[in-house]
């Protein structure tokens, strides 16, 4: 089959779908949707439809990226825009069906936005949302909008045209095209894809194309638009001269299943295997579920894992493979569909491109989005994320996941690029406020990186261990005055001398926290205080006298029986017994449990009747 035939068939199929009188219901069942309860919403939708005998087409989509709205459900009736509903519960799903499908009320009270040409009164269009307008959706272009399980759906929006285009090019032309786009990995900082491909093609021996889909962003893409990634895989394989490839998906049954299904469809229509699209190009892809390990972001480590070896990064030697992340490959397919110049138009001229970010932490609207390089970080956090939320002040942003840097609020004007994401392309942005102890968070991050060190090189294995140990001691009240200097010295050494990028970036959170928030470390070490009142050693839990109503909630929640009290009595926490686990805090329905670091307000030694403390005075 030629590409034209394939495309015509797909378009016809999609048109038939579009012109059918049956409404379509889209449910985001990707990771975020599932975590938010999309599966129970989905089953309710199905049962409601069955019960009400409504012939509707239910489509499971990937995530649009507005994770704060999950479970996100959309309804599209013929000739109408797609209407998205956020935070849908099984009950609201039922009322939407009753309102919009049984009746004809699109329920603007429940709707968030629409997608499509037409409008619905009282509901903004997706394109008008600032959180959308800020974005440059290249890799994410179809995520949440198309059926990831349908190859026709992808072809209908321009899919595999890039592959058709590249197959008409010589290898040199293909590489030239990608070079013009300026695409690199990690975006803006790494080796340009063009150089990487060229080097691989020139190397002797058989080559392999390895898809690395291990980070949350990459899995997001695999779940939302697997064909965009696979098209990129095929284009890159063609340009590098690879005939065999591995698609490495983090061990995740949902993502792997989607990728496998997509690959099966490809093989069926002759886009995978021998003689792709009737050309001489052949490519065989093996889909490997790779168990989680941070070091697999190292190309040599990933390659070793694929060879069935311990994934310890090698210091030298060229790989017989090009390793690219799903994000990059999804952009590759866009570059060939829409042209290198189009892609080069995103971001600064000297460093074009886009980057997918996962925004999380203490932010009003967490989610996943793609921005042009150069977008100021602050705009992303506030424009897309809605800031830290009401009544909170943003303290810092951890940019780049566990290997990233803590950036203070004052650095939010930094443009998205290497300065913001130094750590090999991980796009996780975690927002922290005054409620967060950076020493404590950094300690736990280092516990993680230490556990993830492959164990080969001393600086990483032992160095991250020392960093973690020192941070732990600081949070436990055992910090020494020299510790900040020691951390800085150790961190710099581990960074400079480690074998691979895991070790070279592992100290980033420590070094950046020290650089910008040294006083927080010193508060722990010298003043024995945790300003965020997180570290148990420096925190006291107590019960607010004027809030306690004498109910047993906190007492029942306490695992140590450290809370004394009774019906109608103001409860008192025995500080000797309290282990600062914090379970009483959320247990109190009246917000009467409070934390202090440093001086704790005076409380009675034993329970007193509710209301009596104020009357008797504090004598």
């Amino acid at each position: 089959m030629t590409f034209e035939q394939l495309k015509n068939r797909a378009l016809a199929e999609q048109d038939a779908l579009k012109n059918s009188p049956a409404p379509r219901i889209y449910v985001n069942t990707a990771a975020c949707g599932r975590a938010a309860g999309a599966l129970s919403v989905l089953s309710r939708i199905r049962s409601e439809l069955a019960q009400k005998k409504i012939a509707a087409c239910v489509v499971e989509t990937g995530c649009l990226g507005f994770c704060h709205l999950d479970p996100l459900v959309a309804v599209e009736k013929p000739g109408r825009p797609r209407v998205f509903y956020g935070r849908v519960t099984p009950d609201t799903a039922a009322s939407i069906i009753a309102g919009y499908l049984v009746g004809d009320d699109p329920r603007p009270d429940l709707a968030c936005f629409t997608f499509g040409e037409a409008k619905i009164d009282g509901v903004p269009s997706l394109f008008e949302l600032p959180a959308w307008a800020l974005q440059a959706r290249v890799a994410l272009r179809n995520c949440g909008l198309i059926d990831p399980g349908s190859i026709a759906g992808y072809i209908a929006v321009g899919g595999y045209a890039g592959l058709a285009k590249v197959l008409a090019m010589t290898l040199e032309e293909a590489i030239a095209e990608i070079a013009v786009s300026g695409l690199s990995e990690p975006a803006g900082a790494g080796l340009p894809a063009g150089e990487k491909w060229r080097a691989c093609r020139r190397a002797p021996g058989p080559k392999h194309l390895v898809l690395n889909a291990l980070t949350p962003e990459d899995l997001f893409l695999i779940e939302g638009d697997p064909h965009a990634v696979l098209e990129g895989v095929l284009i890159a394989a063609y340009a590098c001269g690879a005939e065999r490839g591995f698609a490495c998906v983090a061990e995740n049954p949902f993502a792997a299943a989607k990728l496998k299904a997509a690959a099966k469809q490809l093989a069926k229509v002759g886009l995978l295997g021998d003689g792709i699209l009737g050309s001489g190009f052949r490519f065989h892809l093996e889909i490997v579920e790779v168990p989680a390990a941070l070091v697999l972001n190292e190309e040599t480590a990933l390659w070793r894992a694929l060879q069935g070896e311990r994934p310890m990064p090698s210091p030298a030697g060229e790989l017989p493979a090009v390793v690219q992340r799903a994000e990059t490959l999804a952009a590759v397919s866009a570059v060939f569909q829409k042209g290198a110049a189009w892609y080069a138009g995103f971001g600064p001229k000297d460093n074009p491109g886009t980057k997918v970010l996962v925004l999380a932490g203490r932010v009003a609207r967490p989610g996943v989005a793609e921005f042009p390089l150069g977008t100021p970080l602050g705009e992303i956090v506030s424009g897309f994320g809605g800031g830290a939320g009401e009544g909170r002040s943003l303290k810092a942003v951890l940019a780049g996941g566990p290997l990233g840097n803590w950036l203070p609020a004052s650095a939010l004007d930094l443009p998205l690029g290497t300065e913001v994401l130094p750590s090999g392309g991980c796009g996780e942005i975690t927002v922290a406020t005054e409620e967060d102890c950076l020493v404590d968070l950094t300690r736990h991050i280092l516990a993680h990186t230490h556990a993830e060190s492959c164990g080969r090189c001393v600086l990483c294995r032992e160095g991250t261990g020392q960093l973690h140990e020192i941070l732990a001691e600081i949070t436990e009240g055992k910090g020494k005055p020299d510790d900040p200097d020691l951390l800085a010295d150790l961190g710099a050494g581990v960074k400079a001398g480690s074998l691979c990028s895991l070790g070279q970036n592992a100290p980033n959170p420590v070094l950046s926290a020290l650089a910008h928030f040294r006083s927080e470390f010193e508060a722990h070490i010298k003043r024995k205080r945790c300003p965020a009142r997180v570290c148990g050693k420096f925190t006291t839990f107590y019960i607010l006298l004027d809030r306690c109503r004498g109910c047993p909630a906190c007492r029942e929640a306490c695992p140590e029986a450290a809370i004394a009290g009774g019906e109608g009595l103001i409860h008192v926490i025995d500080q000797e017994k309290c282990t600062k686990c914090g379970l009483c805090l959320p247990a109190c329905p009246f917000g009467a449990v409070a934390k202090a670091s440093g001086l704790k307000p005076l409380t009675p030694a034993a329970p007193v009747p509710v209301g009596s403390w104020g009357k008797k005075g504090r004598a």
Partner: protein
Amino acid sequence: MVANQQQPLPKTAGGFPPDRSSLLSLLQKAQEEKGYLTREAVAEIARMLGLSPNEVYSVASFFAGFRFAPPGEHTVAVCLCPACRQQGAGLILKTIERELGITPGRTTSDKKYTLEAAPFCGCSPLAPVVAVDGGLHGRVTPIRAKELLAQTGACGASRTIPAR
């Protein structure tokens, strides 16, 4: 030296090619079958690939995802990534620890639950996240955590506090 090194290797179960590159897939398949990697499974995979069991174990032990002891009937994983931790993952873990009476990495004595601490969840925007038997649950509170345990079966979650 060893007989099977000279004989042609049999095609492995599941149709994987009989070379090292199938190792991860074979390990995953073995774990799927028994819930963990038994000594016999490791020996069998080693035999199929012409490796020593030590080599196979060395690779498998690298990945936190492979188990060498049988897990409980239900696996509860609490994500401890920074976003989840900020938003109460620590409390959730403590709540579950208290409910089940075990620390992460352990299995209850009735073999009902295995508790795990996960370094990341893949959907941090929904933090804090708990996975029960692979099913993700976001925006979890300590109370919700107890409910999740209760939904898996009456036994371990008998102490769930009634809604107030």
